[in-house]
């Protein structure tokens, strides 16, 4: 708060009013665009159509989810693949962040960062379509494999789980690199040198010095990437094709193709619950607190 001085004493209620007014746009935005629609979705998910224009409260939508093995299988599959994708993204992003902060100097480091950023100048759709061109049977990579004599005929590289994972890691890489860079930057190089001086191996230094220091950044990156992946619609759909089975697709289908908003809303809440639960478990396992993670990232 600005101290205006003794001449014009700001009374407590005025101060509170200013605070409220300053927060008002954000609160209004939160309430109108996030809370209200969710309340409506919650109400939708808890009713069932019994006849045209006649609805009654019921848990039928959630019952359908558990009764039809397909739906919860896709649900579990989406969760597992998202976790795998997050882990892979971390594995790929960590060396990149390390090189940017600790190995490269000055302009080289800035340049590397820009290289990570450039793919994000085009939209996600275009990037996914780029992968399509590279991987389809009549595409670039299969033709290259044939030319190199690795395969006799062009193989279809699309529509596999591995393709989906590749696409997901690619799309979310930046969101892992940024928090990692910011947390590694604050790590004093002399600490690493001290560890080596005291005879620690590379692995021991990583485990005892680097990772504990970067933990909030790692956790923040993982949370962001996990949520983006779990809620991604485009990449699994385009690269997974007939086998994608991503939970967001089921939600889209229920809303848009089947006009079954009740079922779609129920699926949406199940996904919300899932992501909350997994993030909570992840925080517990890594011993981090959500507030700290968000502040440090």
């Amino acid at each position: 708060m600005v101290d205006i001085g003794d001449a014009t004493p700001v009374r407590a209620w005025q101060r509170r009013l200013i605070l409220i007014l300053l927060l008002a746009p954000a609160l209004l935005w939160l309430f109108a665009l996030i809370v209200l629609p969710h309340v409506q979705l919650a109400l939708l998910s808890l009713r069932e159509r019994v006849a045209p224009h006649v609805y009654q409260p019921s848990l039928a939508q959630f019952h359908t989810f558990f009764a039809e093995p397909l739906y919860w299988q896709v649900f579990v599959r989406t969760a597992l693949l998202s976790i795998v994708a997050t882990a892979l993204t971390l594995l790929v992003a960590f060396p990149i962040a390390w090189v940017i902060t600790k190995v490269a100097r000055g302009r080289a480091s800035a340049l590397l960062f820009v290289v990570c950023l450039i793919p994000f100048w085009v939209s996600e759709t275009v990037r996914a379509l780029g992968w399509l061109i590279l991987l389809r049977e009549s595409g670039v990579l299969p033709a290259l494999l044939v030319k190199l004599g690795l395969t006799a005929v062009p193989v279809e590289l699309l529509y596999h789980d591995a393709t989906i994972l590749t696409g997901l890691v690619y799309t979310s890489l930046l969101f892992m690199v940024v928090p990692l860079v910011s947390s590694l930057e604050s790590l004093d190089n002399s600490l690493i040198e001290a560890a080596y001086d005291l005879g620690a191996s590379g692995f021991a230094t990583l485990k005892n010095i680097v990772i504990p220091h970067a933990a909030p950044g790692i956790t923040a990156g993982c949370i962001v990437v996990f949520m983006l992946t779990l809620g991604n619609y485009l990449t699994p759909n385009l690269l997974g094709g007939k086998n994608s089975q991503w939970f967001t697709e089921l939600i889209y289908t229920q809303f848009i193709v089947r006009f079954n908003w009740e079922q779609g809303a129920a699926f949406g809440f199940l996904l919300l619950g899932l992501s909350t639960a997994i993030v909570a478990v992840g925080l517990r396992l890594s011993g981090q607190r959500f507030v700290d993670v968000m502040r440090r990232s």
Partner: protein
Amino acid sequence: MRTLIAGVLALFLVLSGCSRLDNSKRLRIITWSDYVPADVAAEFEKETGIHVELTLSNNEEMISKLHATGGAGYDLAQPSQDRITGVQREFGLYRPMDLSQVKLEQFRPEILAITRRIATLDGKLYALPYLWGSEGLVVNSKYTTVSDYGDLCRADLKGKTSMRLRRPTLMAFAFASGKDPFALYDNPKAYEALMEDVGKTLSACKSNVRFFFDNRDQLLNGMRSGEVVAAMMWDTGGWTLNRENPDIRYVVPKSGALGWLDTFALPYKGRNDAGAYRWINFTMRPDIAARITRKVGNWTAARGTEELVDQTMRAQFNASFPGGAFSGINWYPAIPAGLEAQEGRILDRVKAAN
């Protein structure tokens, strides 16, 4: 407080500014891509002073958008005729046609009769026919031959066929199994059993499918590159490919092609009915209708256009349907509400099958 008042005032000004836009001078149409050629819209504006605003969509999205707003946002929609009465009964998204405003003599009577039969609810007609066509099989005869939908699942076509993971595919394979799904619409038990069977057939067939296509271009490209050699598709797609590559042909399956018809329908909260009726009368004029048909490649419901349309296309049509359109086509009847939820579960299972 002052900012609040200013904000409210600004909002008020913006809103009143919007409502001052003259609704009688613009026509907001939600339709399929290509359905409104730019030159036709320009000529309409020159003649009437009404500016056409287009939103491109498909059946499901069209209905979802209207559903979300209770039928507001558009002055004219073009869903398929089987999507009219079920949606109307369930959500009330359309307004009945005022036939005194329409030049009915411009329509082909046999097609108008089909739409009347399918899109009438409680004695009121909710749609008028615009364009129609059929869906059957497209085959690259250089590589293989097919004669019915079931052939897409033949062992020698593994990984080389395509179809949509949508209800037409369920209907097609139901017909191919020798049953008539349309006759079972009113018998939910028997219908569900039939759909279960079709779902099993399709799940077993999945390894034959290279991809389930979502849009026309995706399939056309697959056929052009030879990645797909046989597919379930609309007639015009087949004829388009046929003009590029004579090996690719549209085949009417033994168990019949499926007939679709896209309509004009008035959204419940449309703001320019007069403009919509003028547009309908305009696009059904023989010269304009023939131009649309030439451009879009689908058949118009307007009469007196036979000599005006592309004669290659007419020849292709006559070659595919030697008995005429109304003998070889199964027309989709109105979909009863609730049916799609049932079919949806089957389609989801097919998608999940390995």
